């Protein structure tokens, strides 16, 4: 059993998991997925073995919760409908709307592999364990996704 208070788990990994959820789902559904992820994690937490990779565990849960949202939103009007207003609210991050749209144009597997590798910092062998398939396939999906992002994103979005 873990003896780290769950509050510290939220403080340490909360923002990474939110960034992952945003990259996979977009900003609208990300907070719902985050909340569902941490509630499920809190429920299972006493059974987590000591010395587990807590972030990988959380990302694995977030992966499943995000999938639920993807399935649900395939039955709803698509995400882009709500994006222009949201981006207009935040001048500070005006350029990010380009990134959201570019991410949304990728395949789900590309978004997942990119989020888990680049935002959660997981090696591809671990990414493959979460998304299924081989390590090479996960690496290829992320590389294809990155190439597509570079092509579609306005130049100003790069730093």
């Amino acid at each position: 059993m873990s003896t780290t208070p769950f509050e510290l788990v939220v403080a340490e990994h909360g923002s990474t998991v939110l960034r992952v959820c945003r990259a996979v789902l977009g900003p609208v559904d990300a907070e719902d997925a985050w909340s569902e992820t941490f509630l499920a994690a809190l429920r299972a937490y006493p059974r987590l073995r000591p010395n587990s990779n807590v972030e990988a565990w959380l990302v694995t849960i977030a992966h499943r919760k995000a999938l639920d949202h993807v399935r649900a939103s395939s039955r709803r009007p698509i995400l882009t409908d709500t994006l222009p207003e949201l981006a207009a609210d935040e001048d500070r991050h005006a350029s990010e709307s380009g990134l959201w749209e570019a991410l949304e144009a990728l395949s789900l597997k590309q978004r997942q592999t990119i989020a888990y590798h680049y935002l959660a910092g997981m090696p591809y062998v671990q990414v493959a364990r979460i998304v299924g398939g081989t390590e090479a396939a996960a690496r290829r999906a992320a590389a294809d996704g990155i190439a597509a992002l570079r092509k579609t994103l306005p130049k100003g979005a790069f730093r």
Partner: protein
Amino acid sequence: MTNDRDLFATLPPVDDEVTHRLHRRLVDAANAAGLLDVAYRTLDTPVGTLLLAATPTGLVRVAYPSQDHDLVLEGLARDVSPRILRAPARLDGVAREIEEYFARRRRTFDVPLDLQLSHGFRRRVLAHLAEIRYGQTASYAAIAKAAGNPRAVRAAGSACASNPLPVVVPCHRVVRSDGTVGQYVGGVEAKQTLLALEATA
């Protein structure tokens, strides 16, 4: 691959507002699902910033800064449950009563207590501490006797030293038979402050 990582530099930061909103939402959901095994908050008082922690049963822990709040929370994770969140609402009643106590507007605490961290003789000692009235003191020997073992004076002392609920369960009212203040879980200075507060009320 640093360049590729820079692609995501334009993602909005996870700022404090988002963090707080999500945290509040998690606390509410945890509470509703019966998963908030331990809620905690801190409270600034004349004897320092106290850590207050409660289970659904009641107040389970009060800790002084000198006891290291991080270590105390780790202990709660081990001894009670690791499902611990900073969730002040459950402790509003306790916090209000402690504030009233320090403002000399309250002499006894009415909040439900969870004594699961104390066992056997120590727990019997705690039960008798509540009988020492506000502004009064008792000796370690008297407490040992009241708890059913007159020779266990040292054990009565260590029961006070390990009191999981100082201030609320008044171990500060137990002094040495020679009239000196004796030791205290929150330090001698804190004990003197509490005794002086009650004496002048």
